Structure formats: structure tokens, C-alpha cells
């Protein structure tokens, strides 16, 4: 048989000796105040970690790719032919909804147009744009003036 609803409010007696225990606890010294600096340090470290994660791609390969002065054109085929995505195309920012999806078409860096071939490969996933990129590694002058491949 189910108990009546008001059985949930049956008044129980607390264990005896509560007041004496409370007196004892209140008579103890107050614990020293905990220092705040470990908490602040942890918060600062966490903020720095988040900032590093968010900003790392912009200081990594993408930034090098956008900077033609700092990026030798022979560093890699993708760097050679495909204009780097700007910071706003950072996948983390896109995932966070802070930047729009990059739009087609892919742009070729002007210096690489002559040595690259780009082909759009249709795939089923409408959210993914797939390009086949072929690049010819350009010649680079060696220190003694000879052309090397």
C-alpha cells in the first residue's frame, strides 16, 4: 500500500547533542583566509591558454602564407598556389559563429597563377568544397646564380 502524500513531511528529530557540537565548532579558531592569488593565477593561465588556442592559427602557417615577403614561394605546393584564408576564415572562428564560411571560388595567388592548375571536384557534401590543386615548383636561383629545380 502506498504511503499518503503527507508522509513526505513527517517530522524527524535530529541526532542528539547538536548544540554541544555546534558550540565546539564555533569555539574553534576560524580558519585562515585562503589566499586569492592561486585562483587568480589559475584564471589567468586558463585565459592565456584559450587565447593561445584561438590565436595560434593566425600566427602559424596561415599568416606565413598571407605574407608574400616572409613566405618563400617554394615552401610548399599549397602555399604556392592557393591564396591563404584570411584570419576571418579561421576554422575556430567559423565554428564559434564569429566568422562566415569562406566563399568560393578559391583564389590563386597572383604570383602562382602561371604555375598552377586548379580543378573543382564535385562531391556529395554541400558543405565541403573540394579542389584538386596541381602546382609546378618554380625555379629558384642558387647563391651562385645558377637555376636549380
Amino acid at each position, binding site marked *: 500500500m502506498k504511503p499518503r*502524500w503527507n508522509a513526505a513531511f513527517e517530522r524527524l528529530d535530529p541526532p542528539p547533542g547538536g548544540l554541544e557540537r555546534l558550540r565546539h565548532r564555533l569555539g574553534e579558531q576560524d580558519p585562515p583566509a585562503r589566499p586569492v592569488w592561486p585562483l587568480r593565477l589559475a584564471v589567468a593561465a586558463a585565459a592565456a591558454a584559450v587565447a593561445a588556442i584561438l590565436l595560434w592559427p593566425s600566427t602559424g602557417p596561415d599568416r606565413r602564407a598571407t605574407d608574400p615577403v616572409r613566405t618563400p614561394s617554394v615552401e610548399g605546393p599549397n602555399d604556392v598556389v592557393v591564396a591563404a584564408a584570411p584570419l576571418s576564415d579561421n576554422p575556430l572562428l567559423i565554428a564559434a559563429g564569429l566568422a562566415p564560411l569562406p566563399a568560393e571560388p578559391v583564389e590563386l595567388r597572383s604570383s602562382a597563377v602561371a604555375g598552377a592548375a586548379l580543378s573543382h571536384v564535385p562531391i556529395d557534401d554541400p558543405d565541403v568544397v573540394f579542389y584538386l590543386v596541381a602546382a609546378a615548383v618554380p625555379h629558384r636561383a642558387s647563391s651562385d646564380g645558377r637555376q636549380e629545380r
Partner: protein
Amino acid sequence: MLAEAAIPDRSVAAAAADAPAAETTSLDAARLESLYARLEKPMFNVVYRWLWNRADAQEVVQDAFVRVWRRRDVVRMETVEALLYRTALNLASNRLRAQRLRRWLSLEALFERGGEAEAPATGPDDRARDAAIRAAVEALPDRLRRVVMLCEFSELSYDQVAATLGIPPGTVASRRNKALAVLRERLGDER
């Protein structure tokens, strides 16, 4: 009486503006003892409906008093009762969360306390009855449980319960009715 002299007086400069203006409204040891004598049982009964353990419930009630005592410089007597209930409810919720986390991490055995054992049920019928009551109470969402337990066990008015929980008085009444309806549905309603 409490050994008040043994407790260091910690003045809080920032709270000077909120400090009680008249000495008659400040929290002293005698008033705290008087409050404990009056509120121990109702607070115990409220907290017990979260923890279902008598030793834990009493400890949480005492924790609430200790915390309020340590902040006595900024506590006002007019609101101390609501503050005690609010503190106890929050401590009970925190402890319950910690218990669930330990259980989830399968570390419960490491933290088993040797406190007072629960009053043994006298028979299988009593155990089934207690289990049914507990299941019905635990089925209440936290916001309903807080309201209905404070209304049933404390001597706070609707307005005081509302102030304690930070909700409008009308919400107290509606949540209490809703909670009672749930309990009536899950438990018997024979008269």
C-alpha cells in the same frame, strides 16, 4: 554560552555600510544559540530531504550556522533566518552533487563515512514505504522541492520563503501547489 572570546573578531571594512546600526540587531553568541535551538529541527528536516542521511543533514545545518557566524559582522538579525535556510539549502545541494560525482567516479567506497547509521526500518513494509517517499520527493524538480520543503517545515511566511529563494511570493504559492500535486499523484491521497 558560546566561548565568544575565543573566536577572533574579524571586522570587514567593506561591509561597514551594511553593518547593523543598532547593537540590539547584531548577531551574538546568545542569539545564535537561541536560533539554533529553534531552527535546528526544521532546518534538519528540510536538508534531510536532499541528503537522506541524518548525520549528513545535521552536519550541513551546523555548517550553515558556522558560516553565518563567521560573517556575523555583516549579518542582520532581520534576515538571518532566511540566510540560514538559503545557506543550508545551497550546502545540501553542493554536497549532493559531490556525492553524485564520487559515485560516478566509483570512489564512493573511499569516502564512506562512519557517521551515525540511519534508523533501521523495522520491516520490509517500512523500507518500501520509505523508498516510495524518497522516490516521490526526489522526483520533484529542485525548484519545487525547495519551495515545498521550506513551506512545510520552516515557519517562514510565503513572503519570507520568496525572499529566501529570490522568487516572487506568487511563485511560492504556485510552486508549492504544483509540488503537492506531484506528491499526491505519486503517493496516496486517501483521507
